[in-house]
């Protein structure tokens, strides 16, 4: 940007004006959801007042560990992601898909279950989760049969992103190319400063909302500070994957002894896949009524770490943890490239933090892709 030519696309939103954003969204029919401290963790919860935001809360994340601390700071977004992403809001952890009813002549009638979708606006979304959103869109909406429940929720989503200024020690979005700056998929993106936010619109409705607030154009030094914080966030990341495309390296190492070694630490509990913002596996369950005259068919989050995931008519294809972990990593970082044109990892680091035994995907991938260990 040339000196003296103000960037009119970015406005300055004083901190107390954020409430007006929430009010405007609520007025437009959105349920606002935002970061709140719950059980010592930043989670997305209903957010009517900005006073409920985690002001002065910093998180500390390490493999298998999460803690939050309160410091004296006006900042409300000075934390890295908690366990949730946008995933639970779009790909529901459990939902009914259809019902079947048997009439008195024994005939079956199948009926689709319409999801009860309310427009929601999520405040504080990070770049990594927007990259994940693009991938989930590709999975659920691409192809000949878009997922109707996901599609409805997606159509009713408003995103207020906040560029990440405080990545956790477990984050590595720089190495996957997905952060810390949010570049797409948002309606409004904010950079947090001490006294407010530098705001930019990413969609027409985002621009309409921002224009209505009649904020002043952001000053050059405010923009410079915002840019500086994003750059600093990028520099502060120390974890990284050994490459953007590990497909060949992984498939060349299917018998690497590291798979056996990681299986000794892996509890095969499915926490990594559940917190992963791109994992999309589900299993089907039937819930018949007591009288047996009707039943509900639902899906719920599944994981390649469960037995059922690889069960095929009497055979469990992946009965041990070695093959399950290998399935996860070779799919996520390997065959996703063929399936979706890129890796399935957006560098959010959730699988590292929320693994009960602290298994670090960057460390495992590095060990396995470096060839046969000695």
């Amino acid at each position, binding site marked *: 940007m040339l000196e003296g030519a103000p960037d009119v696309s970015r406005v300055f939103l004083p901190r107390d004006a954020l409430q007006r954003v929430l009010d405007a969204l609520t007025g437009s029919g959105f349920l606002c959801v935002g970061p709140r401290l719950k059980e010592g963790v930043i989670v997305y919860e209903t957010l009517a007042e900005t006073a409920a935001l985690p002001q002065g809360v910093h998180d500390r994340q390490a493999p298998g560990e999460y803690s939050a601390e309160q410091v004296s700071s006006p900042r409300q977004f000075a934390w890295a992601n908690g366990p949730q992403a946008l995933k639970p809001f779009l790909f529901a952890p459990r939902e009914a898909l259809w019902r079947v009813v048997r009439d008195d002549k024994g005939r079956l009638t199948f009926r689709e279950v319409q999801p009860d979708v309310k427009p929601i606006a999520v405040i504080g979304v990070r770049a990594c989760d927007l990259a994940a959103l693009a991938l989930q869109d590709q999975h659920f909406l691409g192809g000949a049969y878009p997922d109707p429940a996901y599609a409805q929720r997606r159509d009713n989503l408003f995103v207020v992103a906040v560029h990440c200024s405080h990545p956790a020690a477990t984050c590595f979005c720089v190495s996957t190319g997905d952060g810390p700056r949010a570049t797409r998929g948002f309606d409004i993106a904010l950079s947090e400063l001490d006294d407010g936010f530098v705001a930019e619109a990413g969609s027409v409705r985002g621009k309409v909302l921002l224009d209505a607030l009649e904020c002043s154009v952001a000053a050059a030094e405010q923009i410079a500070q915002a840019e500086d914080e994003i750059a600093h966030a990028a520099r502060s990341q120390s974890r990284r994957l050994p490459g953007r495309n590990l497909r060949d390296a992984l498939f060349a190492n299917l018998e690497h002894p590291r798979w056996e070694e990681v299986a000794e630490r892996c509890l095969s509990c499915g926490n990594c896949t559940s917190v992963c913002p791109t994992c999309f596996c589900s299993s089907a369950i039937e819930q018949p009524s007591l009288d047996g005259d009707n039943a509900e068919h639902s899906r719920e989050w599944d994981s390649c770490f469960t037995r059922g995931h690889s069960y095929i008519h009497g055979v469990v294809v992946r009965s041990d943890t070695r093959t399950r972990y290998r399935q996860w990593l070779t799919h996520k970082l390997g065959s996703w490239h063929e399936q979706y044109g890129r890796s399935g990892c957006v560098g959010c680091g959730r699988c590292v933090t929320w693994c009960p*035994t602290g298994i670090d995907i960057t460390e495992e991938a590095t060990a396995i892709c470096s060839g046969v260990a000695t």
Partner: protein
Amino acid sequence: MSGKPKVAVHKFSSCDGCQLAFLNLGEDLLRVAERVDFVHFAEAGPVEPHAKVDIAFVEGSISTPDEVARIQQVRANSRFVVTLGACATAGGVQALRNLADGGKWIAAVYAQPEYIHSLATVTSIASHIKVDLELWGCPVSSRQVLGALRALLFGVVPVEEQDKVCMECKRNQTVCVMVAKGIPCMGPVTRTGCGALCPAFGRDCYACYGPAENPNTLGIARRLEGLGLAPDDIARRFLFINNAAPAFHEAGLRAKGEAHGGKP
């Protein structure tokens, strides 16, 4: 009697709590009774222990000489045998006596120990007879029991829930107590079915549903050690309600062995 399937609920060594999965159903119990005849269910009223039935739900473990004979009778009289809860499925908390000198305990507790006729060991129902379906939990949940009953009435194999509790915690968006609070939790090796009840209240899972499929007991033991649990405490995590389940039994003894300087 009608042509409805006949059901018996038998009690062996147990606290009676799992039978409440039926009794706590409220109006649903009437709907169940429209579908089946409870011909033997002493806690609810009907007593006909020797009746031939389509489905026998068995609560409790085998801990006395007369139970050894009685369970054979139940098997002979029943088309399907379904165990109801931790005692019937894995021996229950009373199987802890397998790890101790039961005779000594009896002598210490009872004024006239000669009236106590118990076996040296406590065993699961499946150690004695062929069991068609095992329902874990201390206690089992009504949802589980009705699900099994409904499937059997349809004539299909009931779905076995065997994933880890963690899967359910994450579906519920429950914050992980182990990662966020450093609370030692058995969820990563424990079978779901409870709906991840305890972590939803901010406490750890204590494995009352027994081992999940493919449980990494050594891995979780190392993690518990990392959270500051002494070897004896780790052993007790395994040697509790489901101490006689093979995966937990081995893991508990291994942790104990290490505590006494022995080889795992």
